[in-house]
Each structure stands twice: as C-alpha cells, then as structure tokens.
C-alpha cells in the first residue's frame, strides 16, 4: 500500500504536515514550486508543496573514510553516474554539508557531532571518538529517511565548529551517509543497503595531505605529519575497524611499478568486493573466479612509463570471501582506458564505453587517470545497478541486472 506524504515547506523550521493517503498511485510524485518572492530573503522565499509516495522509499548507502581521503570526489562521481550534478540545498545555510541532486541526497555524518569544537577541546576527545557523536539521533534519522519520512537534521559548521540550526531533509531515491562512522553503530549499519570504505594507506594519506595543505599558511611538513600522528590512535581504534563491514573497499597504496617510490603520484589501487551480497555482482577480469595477472601494455597497446598492471582473483578479507581487482599505474591516453574497460566484465554499465565516458567527463577530478577514479566510477555503476534491482523487486517485476 502506497503511503503518500504531502509536505508544505516555507522555511527550514516551518511546521510540516504528514498525512497518510492511500489514494495516490504508485510512483506518483506531484511537485509545485512557487517562486514569486525569490528576490526577497530566503526565509520568505521558495514555497514548495510536495507529495512523494512510499514506493520510492530510499535505499541507503554508507561511505566511510577519514577526513581528506576523497569522500567528496567519490560523491561527485557517484551522483554523476545517476545523472545531474549534486549541489548544496538552495536558499539554506551556506555552510550546510548536504548535497542534493535529482535522485540522490548526500549527508555528512559530522552533522551528528554531539560535542562541538569547544566541547571536544574541553573533554580532550577528537571527532573520531564515538563519544563526540550522537549515534542515537543518527540511527533515528537514517531510519526515518529509510521509512520515507522527512527529518530535521542538525548542521555541524566546519568553519565555526558550532552546531547550526537544523535543516529539513526530504527522503530522496538514494540516501548516502558519508563520514567517519557510517558503519560504527550496529543499528545504523543494519539500515545500509550497501557500504563502502575508502582505505588510504599512511604513505598516500601523507602525500595527499601535503598536496592539500602545504600551501596553507602556518602548515609545514612537520605540522601535517604531527596532525596525522596525533589522530592515528583514534583512527585505528574507531574508524579503521569499520572496513570489515564494508561491501566494497577501495584500498589506495603506493605503486610497486617504481622501486622505492615515495612520491605518492603513481598509485596501486585495490577494489575489494564482498561475495554473496544481494544485488551486488563483483566485477571481474577475463574469467570469473580465476587468478589473473595482466599487463595490458604490449603490441596492441603502448603505455608510457611506468606502465599499467592489473590483477584479479579470489581472496579472503576479515574471514569473508571476496574478489579483488587491482590496478597499478596510470592512464596517460584515452585508448588505454577504453582498452581496459573492454576487458572488464560485470561492470553494470548501460552501454559500451560508459566507464570511460564518466572518467573523461570528470577528467579534472583527482584520480581520473588512475585506479581511484576507475574503481569509484565502477562502484557508482554498481550502486545504480543495485538501486534498479531493489526497485524492480519492490515493483514485483523480475530483477534484471544490466550486464555488459
């Protein structure tokens, strides 16, 4: 039975009504937007009346990674696969951490900090520490969204370090929770339809943070190193263990193609995919379940130094059956990427060359020429496939995975 809930929204804190109504047909969405007073300030601004039906109850995706490890880039790739750019909520708090596209809403779990910056300083706890986070509220709100209900979610302001007034979040088709602890609390974890962990090795983390911070006034190699080291005990205790629960792990390591490389420019990236996850069929190279080492460079494809190396095979990860696809090196030319794409199977792409197209579309994003961009794009396609299968199952049609 469809459950439809009309919402009238005038500002972030307007009262809202939720009226059960079974009179609407499935898939029916009515959206009125009045923009008569757009020019005035946002408090009297857009007035939206919306009715959404519960057949579109969101699927929930969790993305875990440390700060500064590429979550934002991944989110931009993911929302791009679903079509349409993700943007901050219009007319809301300019420091909101939320991104909204036609299909997807991404929230940042920092919004569930129970201690603000001053509070953490007084108590001597980092944001990585569960004590600084309100998992009860996180669970309640993710659960509400999953049931198709809107939430009033707090906003953690990363500039001021304070908790700002809440923002209204409507249930989207795909709801992504990204941050430090999406898989930490068992109740929240159980709500996830799919989970991803970005596992950045210490060497690469250091190199990335140098790239990010070195030009920042006050920073030095010493300060960057000190920050990583001071946060490491809490990272190891509370963040890292979550990777055992992830359905897909993207592991980023220094290359093995250049002996003793410590520049962090060429990367070796592993995509670890859990076996037996409903609606998720791991990508493979040549022959599913075999162990393959592949250097695509040769007579058909010329690669520039240091070349490209792939491997694929079954493995175990925290005692669970997984398939691992690994890429070392980087793409220098378009034909290299197309050649590689044409040799991968189970990509869940809608047409031949879709992975390459996505990578080219965002050639300016970090990692578009290496395994991080490639595997993030593939995971994006996998999540789209997962979503379509779940919806197909809900509608009662036979689930059909798009396979290329």
């Amino acid at each position, binding site marked *: 039975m469809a459950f439809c809930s009309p919402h009238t929204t005038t500002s972030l804190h307007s009262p809202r009504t939720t009226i059960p109504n079974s009179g609407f047909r499935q898939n029916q969405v009515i959206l009125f937007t009045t*923009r008569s007073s*757009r*020019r005035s300030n946002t408090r009297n601004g857009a007035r939206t009346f919306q009715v959404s039906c519960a057949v579109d109850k969101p699927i929930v995706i969790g993305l875990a990674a440390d*700060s*500064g490890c590429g979550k*934002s880039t991944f989110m931009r790739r993911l929302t791009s696969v679903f079509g349409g750019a993700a943007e901050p909520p*219009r*007319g809301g708090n300019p420091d909101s951490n939320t991104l909204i596209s036609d299909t997807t809403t991404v929230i940042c779990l920092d919004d569930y900090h129970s201690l603000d*910056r001053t509070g*953490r*300083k007084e*108590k*001597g*706890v*980092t*944001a*990585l520490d569960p004590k600084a986070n309100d998992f009860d509220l996180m669970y309640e709100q993710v659960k509400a969204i999953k049931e198709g209900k809107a939430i009033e979610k707090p906003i953690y302001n*990363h*500039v001021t*370090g304070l908790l700002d007034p809440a923002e209204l979040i409507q249930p989207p088709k795909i709801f992504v929770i990204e941050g430090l602890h999406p898989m930490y609390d068992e109740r929240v974890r159980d709500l996830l339809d799919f989970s991803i962990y970005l596992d950045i090795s210490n060497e690469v983390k250091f*190199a990335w*943070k*140098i*790239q*990010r*911070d*070195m*030009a*920042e*006034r*006050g*920073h030095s190699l010493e*300060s960057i190193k*000190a*920050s990583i*080291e*001071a*946060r490491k*005990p*809490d990272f190891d205790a509370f963040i890292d263990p979550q990777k055992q629960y992830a359905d897909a792990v993207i592991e980023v390591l220094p290359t093995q193609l*250049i*002996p003793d*490389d410590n*520049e*962090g*420019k060429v990367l070796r990236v592993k995509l670890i995919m859990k076996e037996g996850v409903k609606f998720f069929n791991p990508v493979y190279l040549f022959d599913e379940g075999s162990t393959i080492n592949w250097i695509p460079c040769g007579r058909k494809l010329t690669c520039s*130094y*240091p070349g490209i190396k792939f491997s694929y095979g079954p493995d175990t990860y925290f005692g669970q059956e997984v398939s691992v696809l690994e890429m070392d090196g980087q793409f220098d030319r378009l034909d290299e990427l197309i050649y590689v794409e044409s040799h991968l199977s189970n990509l869940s792409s809608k047409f031949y060359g879709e992975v390459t197209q996505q990578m080219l579309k965002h050639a300016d994003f970090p990692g578009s020429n290496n395994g991080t961009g490639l595997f993030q794009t593939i995971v994006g396609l996998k999540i789209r496939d997962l979503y379509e299968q779940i919806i197909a199952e809900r509608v009662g049609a036979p689930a059909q995975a798009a396979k290329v």
Partner: protein
Amino acid sequence: MASALTNVSLSTFAAAARGDVLARPQGPARVTFPMVSRVVACRAGGPATPPGISDKVSESIKDAQEACSDDSASGECAAAWDEVEELSAAASHARDKLKDSDPLENYCKENPETDECRTYDS
C-alpha cells in the same frame, strides 16, 4: 629570469644525462622534495583560501603545538591536531568552492528571474 632559465636547462640536462647512464626508473622520480615544488605551482593557479578560514588554520596549528608541548600523548593534544585537520579540510573545500564558482552563475542560480539573469531566444 636568466637564472631560472639556467636552472631549467641544467636540471633537464642533468636528468637526460642520467637517463643515458642509468636505467629509466632512476630519472625524474629521484628529485628531492618533488611534492613541495609541485604544490607551489598548483597554488599559483588556484584560488587562495578565504582569509577567515586561513587565519583559523594557522591559529589552530599554533594552539596544537602548544597543547602538545607538555604531553604529546594527551587527549588535549589529539583534539587540538584534530581541529587542525578539520579546519584544513574546510579550507580545502572553501578553495574548491571558489574554483567552481562564477559569481554571476551563482547569483542566477538563486535569482533566475532578475534582469541580469535573463536569457533571450533569438
């Protein structure tokens, strides 16, 4: 300018010469502090961090160094460096936002019906 040019040709020459003697992997990857030089070049092309956040980052680094002077294993020390990380990430996001943004485009996203934002079909 002249000295810069000399430097460039010298290092290129040195790398090329080394390439002749040694195997290829020993080439440019051996340069000292390659990251640092690249970052400087990168910053010149991108927008600067908004001053408000930039000040907070440098203040937080000073605070962290102080907080850790007594006991580098204390919770206060970790919390202080965690604040540095949080602000550094915020600074990076603020730079990204500036990079993507055209002031007129942003204004028109919020105010599509204003005169400045009209588009005409010919």
